[in-house]
């Protein structure tokens, strides 16, 4: 049961520190316990990666029975195959870096034990999610990370914007979970079990079967997959259910790095990859995933062009990169999606923590319009941000070496090109998004680190490089951003991929877009690099050579600019069609229906009648007795009549 040591230490740490941290343990002990817990998990996770993924030894550890009802039986288990050990590795490594970083970043906060306990709780829930061997346990982890995310976004709960963002994140995720839980119900309805193995084994036999769903004869597998996909959309902030992610930046920056960039938001990608045997049987579901993913990648990238809050730029970048992972899934390039998930975890956590270092240096400033010229002040952070951005933009020299994104993003785009007409649409939207990505990344770099300082004199004087406890984790992540793609390519998507993934990912015959991509024309793989370099160059032109251009463009295209800057008015739209009507309906139901109709004609009406009827009695209570007696009499009459009519049944 050594495997359990990868999952449970963070839970133990969270419980101990959560209950006793503030009173008995103190800040330092709380930090040691939580960091120790997650570092232990990370060590075991690396061992698991070596034995399970590289040693080809997938197995499942059953812990105990959770609950059951008829044929619906749910266990607590640890399913360890290549897919889950990759996820365990990513989660524990990034989480331990974030834990350590938080020791420095949150040093001046007054609730250090609570923060560390929440981080560890999150880590446990995420591990429970990725090790699930049935849909319900996955749902447990799924909701659990949602809870941790809610607690951490609202960590500074005295700020109204933080608690509002926390609620929004939880509720929008619940909209996704609405789909997910219906999906689980559909899985059980179709397969009579919620265990992964029997469900996946039977998936092929259900192709072309239909059932009545909401008045239609719906294809069973497509319905089931699309419902599950709604859940994935919520957790992974796909277009339509993405509005919570930018607001989630209200949480402390380490939270944004861990939950809202590296791990939790990728749970949707993981879930779809886990369900590959289901999705492979439903071409319709795959097409929907591709289209939604591609649109998300594109739309989020455009919004990223216009934002000024350094964390929001990176947040939209995250959403856009998640879009890439989704359309990779849509074209059956599951391994490419997980590959990008892994590399993205490193470089995006790096970017967020780097941004945190910038914010830390400027005493909490997040607006890039008030930054500039920081490279001389915080050069180490500057270099690390450069590495992260190069990895995000996917820069590299073909055939020699590239940053992490160079391998994973290119693989996704190349595979998409091979994925039929819908795949090609995704390819071109992805190319456009890659161009925007490079542009906004260097817009961020230049606005933050170059040019003349725009922060006030006082802030600049106090600007300082972060302490080693923050820079060390950044360095580890930077190593990932530098080498993860180069090292992982062969196993994840290259020659060795079949052996590496084993049975954890299923690709139907004829769907292997990665195989096709390896044989595709050269220019498909070169184009993302070209547009990336072009984007960097254009950012250089806009923000260094011609600094008046951004404002001028924003004015001349003001309609379009406003649309994008206002994030396509999703929030306003949802507010108008969901939030306000819900409250208005609530008020109408309460005041007009409950009080106005039901009470008025029901009890209150009868009460008035009773009061007048019992006027002869001095006390109100006697009225009840009278009424009781009367009702009994009426009852007996009704009964007698009833018997007479039915002739003594």
């Amino acid at each position, binding site marked *: 049961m050594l495997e359990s040591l990868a999952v449970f230490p963070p839970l133990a740490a969270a419980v101990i520190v959560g209950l006793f941290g503030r009173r008995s343990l103190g800040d330092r002990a709380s930090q040691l316990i939580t960091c120790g817990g997650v570092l232990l998990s990370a060590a075991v996770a690396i061992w698991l990666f070596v034995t399970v993924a590289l040693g080809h030894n997938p197995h499942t550890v059953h812990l105990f029975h959770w609950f059951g009802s008829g044929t619906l039986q749910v266990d607590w288990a640890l399913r360890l195959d290549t897919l889950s050990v990759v996820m365990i590795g990513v989660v524990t490594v990034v989480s331990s870096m974030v834990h350590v970083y938080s020791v420095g970043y949150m040093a001046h906060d007054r609730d250090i034990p609570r923060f560390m306990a929440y981080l560890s709780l999150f880590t446990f829930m995420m591990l429970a999610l990725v090790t699930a061997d049935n849909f*319900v346990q996955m749902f447990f982890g799924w909701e659990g990370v949602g809870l941790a995310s809610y607690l951490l976004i609202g960590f500074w*709960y005295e700020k109204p914007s933080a608690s509002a963002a926390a609620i929004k994140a939880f*509720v929008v995720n619940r909209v996704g979970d609405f789909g997910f839980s219906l999906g689980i*119900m559909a899985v059980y309805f179709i397969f009579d079990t919620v265990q992964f193995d029997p469900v996946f084994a039977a998936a092929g036999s259900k192709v072309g*079967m239909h059932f009545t769903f909401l008045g239609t004869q719906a294809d069973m597998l497509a319905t089931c997959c699309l419902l599950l996909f709604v859940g994935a959309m919520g957790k992974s902030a796909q277009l339509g259910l993405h509005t919570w992610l930018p607001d989630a930046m209200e949480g402390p920056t380490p939270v944004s790095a861990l939950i809202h960039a590296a791990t939790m938001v990728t749970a949707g990608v993981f879930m779809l990859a886990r369900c590959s045997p289901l999705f492979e049987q439903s*071409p319709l579901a795959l097409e929907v995933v591709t289209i939604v993913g591609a649109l998300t990648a594109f739309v989020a990238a455009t919004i990223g062009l216009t934002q000024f809050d350094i964390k929001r730029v990176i947040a939209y970048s995250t959403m856009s990169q998640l879009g890439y992972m989704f359309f990779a899934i849509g074209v059956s390039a599951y391994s490419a999606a997980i590959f990008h998930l892994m590399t993205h975890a490193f470089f995006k956590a790096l970017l967020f923590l780097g941004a945190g270092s910038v914010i830390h240096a400027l005493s909490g400033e997040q607006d890039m319009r008030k930054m500039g010229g920081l490279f001389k002040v915080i050069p180490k952070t500057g270099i690390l941000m450069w590495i992260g951005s190069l990895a995000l933009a996917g820069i590299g020299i073909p055939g020699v070496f590239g940053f992490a994104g160079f391998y994973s993003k290119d693989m996704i785009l190349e595979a998409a090109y091979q*994925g039929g007409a819908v795949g090609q649409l995704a390819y071109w939207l992805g190319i456009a998004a890659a161009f925007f990505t490079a542009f906004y990344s260097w817009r961020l770099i230049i606005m933050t680190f170059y040019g003349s300082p725009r922060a006030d004199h006082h802030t600049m004087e106090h600007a300082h490089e972060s302490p080693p406890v923050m820079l060390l984790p950044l360095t580890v992540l930077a190593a990932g951003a530098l080498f993860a793609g180069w090292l992982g390519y062969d196993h994840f998507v290259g020659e060795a991929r079949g052996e590496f993934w084993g049975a954890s990912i299923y690709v139907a015959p004829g769907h292997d877009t990665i195989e096709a991509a390896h044989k595709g024309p050269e220019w498909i793989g070169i184009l993302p690099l070209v547009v990336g370099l072009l984007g960097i160059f254009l950012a250089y032109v806009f923000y260094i050579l011609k600094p008046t251009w951004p404002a001028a463009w924003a004015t001349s295209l003001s309609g379009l600019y406003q649309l994008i800057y206002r994030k396509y008015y999703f929030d306003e739209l949802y507010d108008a069609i969901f939030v306000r009507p819900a409250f208005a309906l609530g008020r109408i*139901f309460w005041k007009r229906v409950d009080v106005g109709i039901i009470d008025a004609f029901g009890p209150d009406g009868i009460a008035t009648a009773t009061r007048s009827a019992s006027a002869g009695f001095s006390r109100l209570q006697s009225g009840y007795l009278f009424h009781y007696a009367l009702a009994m009499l009426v009852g007996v009459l009704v009964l007698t009549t009833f018997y007479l009519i039915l002739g003594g*049944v």
Partner: protein
Amino acid sequence: MAPWPILSIITFLPLLGAVLIMLLPQTDAGVRNVRWTALWTSAITFVVSLFILVYYDPNNPGFQLIERAEWIPGTGIIYQKGVDGISIWFVLVSTFLTPICIVSAWTSIQNRVREFMIAFLVLETMMVGMFSALDIVLLYVFFEGVLIPMFLIIGIWGGQRRVYAAFKFFLYTLFGSVLMLLAILAMYLKTGTTDLVVILHSPFSRELQIWMWLAYFASFAVKMPMWPVHTWLPDAHVEAPTAGSVILAAVLLKMGGYGFIRFSVQMLPDASLYFAPFMFTLSIVAIIYTSLVALVQTDMKKLIAYSSVAHMGFVTMGIFALNQQGIDGAVFQMLSHAIVSGALFLCVGVVYDRLHTREIARYGGMARTMPKYALVFAIFMLASVGLPGTSGFIGEFLALVGTFQVNRWAAFFATTGIILGAVYMLVLYRNIFYGEITKDDVRAMPDLNWREMTVFAPLVALTLWMGIYPSSFKDLIDQSVAQIVEHQQQATGHAARTAVIPAPLTPAVQVEASR
């Protein structure tokens, strides 16, 4: 088999305590003795009630620990008690929560303590008696008997509009009870007995079933309460003292659900199947409608009261799915709701005792000053939202799974409840605990004291236990439910699951072509 009549003992032990309290001298020291006597009585009752689990045979899904005696000779009306895997838990919930309520009322009830404790112990006798009765007349007596102490608790120790609330509560419930009595009479006239076990196996004609079903429906729907006969509940909860609210939410509402299972589903299988779509409709309306109403409440107790109606919507829906998951889920949801909503009302009581207002806007920012309270409230809030790992998830999820098998429309609409439920509870939690503290009296409130901690500790433990390892409770439930479902399906010749229809014209292999 128990060597002693355990069910009768736990039914009448509280009554004995009540008599004892009556005999205590009416002095100042007497008030203290009254409280301790009530607590000891209820605590002993609870401990004794645990022996039911010892004597209960987990492999027998039928009624057990049966006690039988003549009651009214010559009429066929008997005194008969017994429990199965469903009612056993309701008996235990009643005996478990009564001492907790008595502790919670320790300081908050200051006038007429003697009468209050007597009313409470009598209430316990009625509740335990009702859930363990195996004779429909006996059951009816207890079912109605509950009304009297509850009516007094609301009407005497309630808030400002207590008389109105008590009146409304009484009137609504009375309306249902009368019709229930009619149905009981009909059953008696038809079978010549009031033995519940015999009646369970007596088939009734379809027409008679439908009439009787409607009569029972009137009674149980009010008790649940179901939309649109729910409006007594918010008023009763708001006006009742904390301990009254707890018992009302935790136990009294469950009498409706228990009745639906015992009478409607078990005795009237054809009618239950016939009315299932009707019940789905009302349940869905309850879930969505009352969730929206809960959203705009400004009074904490009213909000939780409306949320109870929504949660009971899942129960009625699950019951009338008429399959294993549905009824399992419904029973479990009732048990979970008993613990969680009871605890939430106790939570409201904590701040009400300190500030004497239930107005949500009067509070805010208390996470800073009352961290223990914030944690306890958070756990129950999350259980109410149905977070997996808490008791709230299992029941809600199973009821939905069961419903999905038979009616996708109903499952679809009911599932929206998981979104709405999150909204109103999270907003409530934010308004009480988050933000800056702006009011001095709120800042001055002390965190939970040891007495409050002892009240909450077992409830927190149960909430998590029922969420993480529900099998301890569910195994007994499952067996009895399986028997009920089997009986139901035999009687109606209907498997409560629509067949999967393979579409004949769709080719089985079409994946390759489209790519």
